[in-house]
């Protein structure tokens, strides 16, 4: 089972779906960010799985994953700073309270 590519791909898809659900459903901006991290991880798993089973050079997938992590870190930093800015301005981090722009 764990030698089967499809297991990992499905796992990643499931993780992605869970993350997506979080993004779509959660009200706290921080929870949304957490969900985004899950989705990024799902993508990492995908890359790693392909790397493990299909790819000629195994280093490539690892490096990609590594970079995704770094990007995720940067993204988290930026997102958190913006979330804090939101909180300071709107006194809330509920995404449903961020509702000025429409139409």
């Amino acid at each position, binding site marked *: 089972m764990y030698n089967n590519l499809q297991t990992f791909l499905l796992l990643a898809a499931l993780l992605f779906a869970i993350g*997506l659900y979080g*993004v*779509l*459903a959660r009200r706290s901006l921080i929870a949304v960010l957490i969900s985004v991290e899950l989705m990024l991880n799902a993508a990492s798993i995908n890359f790693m799985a392909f790397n493990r089973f299909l790819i000629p050079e195994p280093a490539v997938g690892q490096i990609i994953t590594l970079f995704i992590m770094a990007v995720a870190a940067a993204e988290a930093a930026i997102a958190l700073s913006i979330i804090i800015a939101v909180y300071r301005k709107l006194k809330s981090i509920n*995404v*449903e309270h*961020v*509702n*000025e*722009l*429409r*139409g």
Partner: protein
Amino acid sequence: MAMQFSDTTFLACLVTSILPILSFGLIMIFTRENPKLSLAISLTASTIPLILAWGLLYKYWGIQEPLVYNLRWLYSDIVKIPFGFLLDPTSLLMLTIVATVSWLVQVYSIGYMGGDPGFGRFYAFLSLFAFSMLTLSISSGLLQLYICWELVGLASYLLIGFWYEKFSASEAGKKAFVVTRFGDVGFFMGLAFLTIYYGNLEIQQVNSAAVAQAMPAWLITTAALLIFCGVMGKSAQFPIHVWLPDAMEGPTPVSALLHSATMVAAGVYLIARIYPFFSASPEAMTVALAIGTITLLLSSTIGMVASDIKQVWAYSTVSQLGFMIMGLAAGSFFAGYYHLTTHAAFKALLFLCSGVFIHHFGTNDFFIMAANGARKLKIPMVTITIAALALAGIFPLAGFFSKEGILGALAHLDNKIWLFAGLFGAFLTAYYSFRVIFVMLFPREPIFQIAAAHSHAEEAHGSHGHGHGHEHEEEHGVPWVMNLPLLILAFFTLTLGFLQGALEQFLTGHAGHHEISIPLLVSAVGAALAGIGLAWLDWGAKNAKCVGFLSRVPALENFFIQKWYMDHFWRWFLNTFIYGLFSKWFTYNDRRVVDGGVDAVAFSTVGSGRYLSRYQTALLQVNLLFMVLVMAGVGLYLVMGR
């Protein structure tokens, strides 16, 4: 083509045709404000054609082979319109008639229109008319004829509406133009059919082709009937005769020129012009005969009850035109055409005489004229009586011979009903014309009462028949420029009758050998005399009650006074169909349906924008969900579809 320009006959035709239009242009552009100069230009431009026309008539008296000259005017593909002249007896005679009458009218108008602010304009329009009518009479092709025909209509419109400040005048002009246009469209359709299915509109060739049966019969009948529509319009035949009586709103010389002698005769002339073609279709001839007859009777009856002198002559014109058409349709080319000729003389005379009275008394109502002493104007009174006698068909005046000719032609027909109708018409004609004459010549006591009543009514309406009453000229009597044309026309009225044989020789190429039908002669003269006698009993006799015999049947009299309700019919037709139904409905449709549809598209575009903007919610996650769903949809399509 260069050859043509060295040909004197051609040049004469060209000058005859072109000079008046040049005069029109010159006057309209430059000398409109200067009466004297305008008059000079216009008179020059009508005298030269007069001389040339008589010269041509003289030169080509007895001509056998027609002369044709053509210039290239507009040559498209099928449609080829040359500008050309066709000289044959038919056209030469018409040319002379037109040139003469229009010259006379121009001379007469010097007096009649003197002092009018639009004097220059008047002469310009007369010149335009002269151009169109002269060119019409010598046109070599039917399309050229049609064009002149339209221009005649235009000139008529302008001249009728000459006193445009007057509502009735402008209305009458519009009516004349539109109603004749109605017929002209038929004319044009006929020409279109001929163009398309025959291809050549040279009058000569159309005629000979019809005679030689080179055209299919259906085409001849269709085209002839359609062209006859034009004739009905221009020659004021039932049921579109209604414009002509109204056209009397124009100055009287105009009535004399256009609406009695020349323009309205154009229709009859057209039939004469393409007589071989016309007569190739028996159906068309029958229709023309019927319409001519109806017109004759209808308008004669109306003439019996009118009190406006110009109206009487107008209806008389209508009826005589019907009579001419009867003559032509009965198969006698000469009879119809000859009546046209004589009618031109005596009817122009009638109008010009009436014009003198109108000018003098400032009213159109002959009862008022009579009461004011019309008989004191000697020359006009004499000439008008001569003309009336001619109109009634009394020997030896011109009308007698021509009428006799037509009745003779009618007598040749199998169905005698046409003959009786013609005789009845002659009776009526004599009655109404002498009604006028007797009233004016021997005003009796009741006349003064009627006149008083009429003048009250006129004042109540606030209108004067003339609109330009020149009462101040009363002491001057009648100027000679007005008398001269009367005398000349009276001369023709007296003499034309004796030229019958010569004219017939000229026109038809063979001498008239009339076996004089005594019963016919007797009945014709008898009908005329009966009419005059009845008129004497009703109006002229010492103790006449001065009411028409018709008053015993008030319903009928009223029917005639209301002009057979034809005006009402057309007014109703216009209001109900043209304005009420089509115009209104189309306008509604335009605003609501067509434009509304366009606006609806625009509004729905904006509306859909408003609707779609609701998907751009302020909630991040709803937007994200939408986006994810679309992506998933695309994904599903790709995954499942393959």
